């Protein structure tokens, strides 16, 4: 059997690899989920209806801005809101991996040939705005305040304190969005990652503790990114279903 010659494979070019595992499954799943979310969010942004039920307000429409008086056709409140969380996710250090692999195929997977070989500029030219992720973070932190306020309002349904299905949905949505936001790499840098010497910097010990805490949850940033994405969509879907009368809200206590 020794010295049997085998044909030399091509190792360069899109999708070319010697990997034998199903490397394409991850990018395909990511592509499907992200595309589905974008289609659903776009539909809801244009629908401009069924975004509230009682005290509940959909996260796609929070904070609610009146657009009818602006006189711009097709403009809905969601269109003013969604660019901010979308910007946060688009420039997110996790989602960058996800969509560079699944949409841009640059590369589609490790040790698998990508597209546009030799014409790559990374994040130096067209994508240079990725360096502004921190500003999207600041907006996301502000939106968390609005969303937690929506949850608080959701506790007072009809003027009475109580917990219902919608309240739980809003709570879980806020919780996972908070975990996603506070595990952000830019937040990690902001709270202490940018320091070289914790022992001598002003509030250095405290900042090291906060940085350590953020670092611990930062390990799960990818998980929080996905859970919170599903959380936003499901919370909106729940409120839409309540608003259309498809389901009734469950009162827990």
């Amino acid at each position, binding site marked *: 059997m020794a010295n049997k010659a085998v044909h030399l494979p091509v190792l360069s070019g899109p999708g070319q690899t*010697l990997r034998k595992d199903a490397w394409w499954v991850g990018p395909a799943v990511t592509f499907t989920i992200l595309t589905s979310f974008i289609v659903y969010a776009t539909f809801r942004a244009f629908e401009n209806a069924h975004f509230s039920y009682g005290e509940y307000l959909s996260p796609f429409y929070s904070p609610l801005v009146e657009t009818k008086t602006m006189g711009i056709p097709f403009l809905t409140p969601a269109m003013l809101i969604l660019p901010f969380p979308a910007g946060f996710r688009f420039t997110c250090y996790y989602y960058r991996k996800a969509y560079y692999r699944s949409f841009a195929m640059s590369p589609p997977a490790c040790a698998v040939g990508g597209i546009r070989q030799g014409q790559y500029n990374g994040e130096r030219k067209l994508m240079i705005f990725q360096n502004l992720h921190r500003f999207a973070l600041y907006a996301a932190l502000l939106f968390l305040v609005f969303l937690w306020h929506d949850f608080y309002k959701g506790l007072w349904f009809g003027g009475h304190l109580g917990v219902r299905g919608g309240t739980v949905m809003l709570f879980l949505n806020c919780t996972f969005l908070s975990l996603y936001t506070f595990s952000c790499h830019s937040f990690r840098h902001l709270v202490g990652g*940018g320091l070289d010497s914790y022992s001598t910097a002003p509030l250095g010990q405290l900042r090291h503790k906060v940085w350590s805490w953020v670092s611990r949850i930062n390990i799960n940033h990818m998980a929080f990114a996905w859970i919170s994405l599903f959380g936003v969509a499901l919370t909106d879907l729940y409120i839409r279903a309540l608003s259309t009368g498809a389901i009734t809200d469950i009162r827990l206590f």
Partner: protein
Amino acid sequence: MSDEAKKSDKATLRIWRGNAEGGEFKEYEVGTYPGMVVLDAIHDVQAEHAPDLAVRWNCKAGRCGSCSAEINGKPRLLCMTRMSHFEPGQPITVTPMKTFPIVKDLVTDVSHNFRVAKRIPPFKPRPRDADGHWRMQQIDIDRIQEFRKCIECFLCQDVCHVLRDHDKHDSFAGPRFMIHLATLDMHPLDTVDRRPMMKEELGIGYCNITRCCTEVCPEHITITDNGIIPLKERVADDFFDPVRWLMRKISPPANKKSLPVLPDPIKATTKTKKKQDAEA
């Protein structure tokens, strides 16, 4: 246990044989035994079939970083990959690292990495304290100790698509050197500002955070999240954040100063050669 009993099972290795001018895959059958790693199988091929098969190795313990190659298309250390990891009966494909020029068979020329290393200004600590000592606390250097686990196997350089697919060897330092730069930039005693160099000459902007370097690191260094992303944020502090830029202008950092960037030896050689050609 006798040799015959030890080698009761067989495995087929498809090994790339060739040099810079070309080559082909050749298949070799070897016996396997519990605990066998791919480097053992390669050594058996050398002993039984192909004594001229070239492979670089040294410690056989995952410490020297010499035996980097690609096994079934994935960058791995030959000495740390067990044969039992692969499905029995299926041939195991072993190729040299794709990113670097082939010398012979599984041996590649990784000298590019040493040239990149020379371009990075070395550690330059601040002056000693009045009593003649440097002082720093453990919390100041915890982070960078992770990066010191690097064994310079260059698997991260091999898998990085910026180098592998797009051949940006002259303009992107690569993941191994990004964590080296992180070690220096985060060091509490260092005084050199390498951020302009990171942005312009070492090309941190080419990294698009696809994390393949982290996936292949045999030392499990979180290269992207703990090294490259913090560096990207530091570069953003200095070059993309107008608020931080203004703060630096008003109050420049006291313990950092720029050093002249060392010339790129590759570009310098090319320039000298062009000049000599023009004169001739």
